[in-house]
Structure formats: C-alpha cells, structure tokens
C-alpha cells in the first residue's frame, strides 16, 4: 500500500491535492516534498481530498498541522475534504477537528473559502 498524490492547479494561489493510499512514516516523506514545493510557489489555499486515504498516523497529522500553521500565517487555509469515518475518528480523538476545517465535498470547500476549483 503506497500513497498516490495528484495535484491540480485551479489558480495561482490555490492547489487541490487528492491523496490515495496510506499516510505513514514511509509515505509522508513524499507528501512533505509535494507540500514544500506547493508552499514555495506562494500558494495560500490547499484543498486536501482525503476520501481515498485509509490510514493516517502522527507523521501525517504533524505534516497537516505544520502546513495549516504556515498557510494561516499568510491568511490562507488548509481545508480537509471528505475524510473516511476512520480518519474523522483520528481527528476527533486528538482534538484536531477543532483546529482544522473539514468539508464533506470539494464543492463545499470551494464555497467556504471562495475558491474556484
């Protein structure tokens, strides 16, 4: 089980990143690289679709928290889209659901942040 990352560029300051697979200590290196690249391009909004992610551990959560901090420092945001029941549980038990914006669909995320996806 690996991680597949598909990034699309709806606009200069926005990225839609769709993930599929498992986010763990092995695969998060790859995700970190992609996010660092996106951040270096001056992006302010990342919409992260987790609908096909089956596993998310503390390395993945750490990456998401760090990305959220960076984006919010620039008045941007990281919006999580469509996590599975299992991943929602991980956000809930860690209390992290309070700091992340979680949307049911990409459409909802776009409306929330007033983005074109």
């Amino acid at each position, binding site marked *: *089980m690996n991680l597949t990352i598909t990034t699309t560029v709806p606009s200069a300051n926005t990225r839609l990143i769709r993930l599929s697979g*498992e986010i*763990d*200590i*092995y695969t998060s*290196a790859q995700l*970190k690289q992609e*996010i*660092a690249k996106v*951040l*270096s391009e001056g992006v302010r909004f990342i919409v992260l679709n987790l609908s096909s992610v089956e*596993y998310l*551990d*503390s*390395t993945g*959560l*750490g*990456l998401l*928290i*760090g*990305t959220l*901090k*960076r984006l919010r420092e620039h008045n941007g945001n990281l919006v999580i889209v469509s996590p599975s029941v*299992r991943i929602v*549980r*991980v956000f809930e*038990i*860690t209390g992290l659901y309070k700091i992340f914006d979680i949307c049911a669909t990409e459409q909802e995320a776009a409306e929330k942040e007033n983005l074109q996806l």
Partner: protein
Amino acid sequence: MTDKMEKLSDALLDLAVVTLTFPCSAEYVSIARLAILGIASRMAFSYDEVEDIRLAVGEACTHAVERSVVADMRAPTNDGHGTITIVSTMTINELTVEIKDDVPTGFPPEGVFQDPVGIDIDRQGLGALLMEILVDKVDVDTTPNGTCVRLVKHAHGV
C-alpha cells in the same frame, strides 16, 4: 519475570503468542500494521478497536524508526541495522503487544528533524498522545540498548 517462568506460564495458560521481527526502517512499518490487523481481527474486538490497535502499534514502530534515525545521525558508528520485534500475546479478553527495538537511547531528537520549510511539528508528542488514547495501557521501558513499548487493549466482545 524470568524467561523460564515466562515459558512455564505460557504453557500453563495456553497463551497464543505471535512474534514478528523486521528491520527498524520506515518501509517495513506497514508490514507490522498488516500483521497486527490479522491478530486483532482474530479477537473479540470491534472494527474501530482493531483500527485503534493498528494505529497504536504503527505509532510505536514509527517512534522506534525516528529514534533510530536520530541515533544514526548522532552516533554514525552505529551500524544502522537495527531491528524491531513485536510480540503479541492473545488471551480470550486481552491483547498485549510489546514493540521492542535495539536503538541505543540517550540521543534526544531536538534539532534533528528541524525543517527549513517549517512544516514539521512535534510528531513524537502526537504519537505518544495517540497511543495513550487508542489503547487501555501504555508502558515504556527504556534501557541503554533499546526501548520496549507495551500496549494492552481489553476485548469486551463484538
């Protein structure tokens, strides 16, 4: 408990023990997660409880791999060929999982994971928090030659 006593009590109680040994390296952690999924699935745990155990064991392995990376950086003479051994003991209503590594201790991680892009946060705190939440009991036993994390989860039936 001595090794001899442990063997004796295993035989008496007819404990089921499954042992997995693998290199202490990021790419093998998923193997451990699959094996523990199989073990927990054989017991009276709900789907959510099985997933909780999988994540907790994953976190313990991840912690070992991260400490191994730190130890290798701090002490390059370290051969970098550590192993993780996971001993799972099943009884009718309890699963105990011991995650043992041979990573030399005493190398604090500060600074090693410093990230020029600034998107790394304190993952080890998160991992420890997750383990505490996900299982009923977490014990960490540290010796100079390695660490043993013991996780216990009670099965209440499904």
